[in-house]
């Protein structure tokens, strides 16, 4: 690295830092964010958490109800992810470079995926809430649509990464399109796809809480209810059960991932 290039690099770094500082400044002014207030809030909030978010005997009594709602939320995210995976598999096969039927379908598949992925799950749940009403279907569909978008992108990547030579070998033997997909492409990318599905289940349980707050279903609704009633002991218990559920699912899927990848 000669002196001139080092100089240029130094300028680049300085320029970059200036941009970041300007963007941060603009963001603080547009959002009325006060850094000092914000920093002071952290110890206050942590202090508040330790003195108020306590699980008491009274809140434990609510446990069966909480577990039922938590179960609903977990089921909702698993069902949404699994069904979305089935749809995504078809979209990914249409969209991928290796397995696409024709250019037209490929573009359509990619468009559907991008459209459903980039509209946040919040927007989907608010749109669906208008006519589906306050029940599990709303949350399920919102998660389903968002997951289709995300999984299609991930699956297209896994299919593209699959080894080309086995596809070529099967093509040479005169195998049909269906044979090539089911014998060469899917077996190779299945572990990778499964890993994405597990990842998405974890993410969806967290999103389901958010969707639940908006659509009045599942554990999110329970949280919102007790939060608004300022019954913080139950709030603590609900948060705790969500944490346990997410961590257990994460550990389980890490175990599966270790074997299959």
């Amino acid at each position, binding site marked *: 690295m000669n002196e001139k290039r080092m100089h240029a690099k130094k300028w680049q770094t300085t320029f970059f830092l200036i941009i*970041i500082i300007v*963007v*941060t400044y*603009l*963001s*603080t002014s*547009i*959002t*009325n*964010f006060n850094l000092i*207030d*914000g920093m002071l*809030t952290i110890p206050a*909030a942590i202090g*508040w958490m330790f003195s108020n978010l306590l699980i008491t005997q009274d809140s434990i009594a609510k446990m069966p109800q909480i577990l039922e709602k938590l*179960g*609903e939320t977990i*089921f909702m995210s*698993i*069902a949404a992810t*699994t*069904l979305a995976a089935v749809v995504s598999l078809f979209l990914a096969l249409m969209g991928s470079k290796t397995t696409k039927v024709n250019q037209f379908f490929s573009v359509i598949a990619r468009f559907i995926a*991008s*459209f459903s*992925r*980039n*509209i946040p*799950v*919040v*927007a989907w749940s*608010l*749109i*669906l*809430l*208008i*006519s589906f*009403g*306050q*029940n*599990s*279907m709303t949350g*399920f569909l919102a998660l389903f649509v968002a997951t289709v978008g995300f999984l299609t992108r991930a699956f297209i*990547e*896994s299919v593209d*990464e699959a080894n080309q030579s086995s596809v070529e070998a099967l093509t040479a033997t005169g195998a049909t399109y269906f044979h090539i997909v089911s014998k060469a492409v899917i077996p190779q990318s*299945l572990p990778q796809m*499964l890993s*994405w599905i597990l990842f998405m289940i974890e993410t969806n349980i*967290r999103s389901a809480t*958010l969707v639940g*707050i*908006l659509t009045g*279903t599942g554990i999110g609704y329970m*949280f919102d209810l007790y*939060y608004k009633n300022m019954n913080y002991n139950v709030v603590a218990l609900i948060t705790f059960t969500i*944490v346990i559920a*997410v*961590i257990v699912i994460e550990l389980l899927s890490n175990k*599966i991932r270790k074997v*299959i990848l």
Partner: protein
Amino acid sequence: MEMVKDINPTLIKRKGNGQINIKSGNKVDTVVKWTIWVLTALTILAFFFFDYTGLQIQRAISETLYNLRVMFFEPALTHFSWGEAFYQVGITLGLGVLATIFGAIIALFLSLLAAENLSKPWISKMIRVFVAFIRAVPTVLWVLIFAIAAGLGSEAAVLGMLFHSIAYLVKAFSEAIEEVNPGIIEALRSTGSSWWHIVVHGILPSTFTYFLSWTFLRFEINFSVAVAMGAAAGAGGIGFELFMASGFYFDLREVGLITYAILIIAIILEVISTRLKNRYFPSSVKA
């Protein structure tokens, strides 16, 4: 013929018709198969546990299709002006920027302590457990919990999102640091460099671009989180307008326009982060 005799016949598993079963004993296949079966069973079960109060599926579907058509083909603004709309999008972007930048700075220091090749095992383990706990709590719960102490507003939203961003980035950053060539660290150590020297001259130069791409990836996520926080936790911005338009005014045309605004920003961010990703890490990376 003699070769065949050498193989212990009990080790060869055959199917009913005498064919040799080439797939038996493959643990990967078994686990994959079982996972798929369990997920399928749970999915079918799920539909029995759902709460269907007030659901009229046919009416709901036809109404939603009609709503979607109004939203996407006749978008319009009625309750606020275009200038206001840009301002609200700006607020949402601002929340995302603040949470991402502060998160990245804090995560950088924490990840140095969390990386196994730079830190003591017990410190790294402690940070990892702590971070896993923070990540398990959904962002919206963090924002709502902070809102009690800080009041509704940008502080609570940024802090709540910050917590989650830190947890996410510490995991990504520390994994990148652990992949740094151990030779570099060893070489610097042998010259008697201090811990800071190793970080500044050994670690940062080779991981900086990774950090930047991860940070941008997180910004992409934080934008949609900021929209969600506006809607669910009263953090303001375009998410709050979306919530008002759909929940209070029932103005589908406005919902459509807001959705388009979010969609456009999200697609721009996705294109940038895909470019960064392809440039700096060719192998697939989990967002």
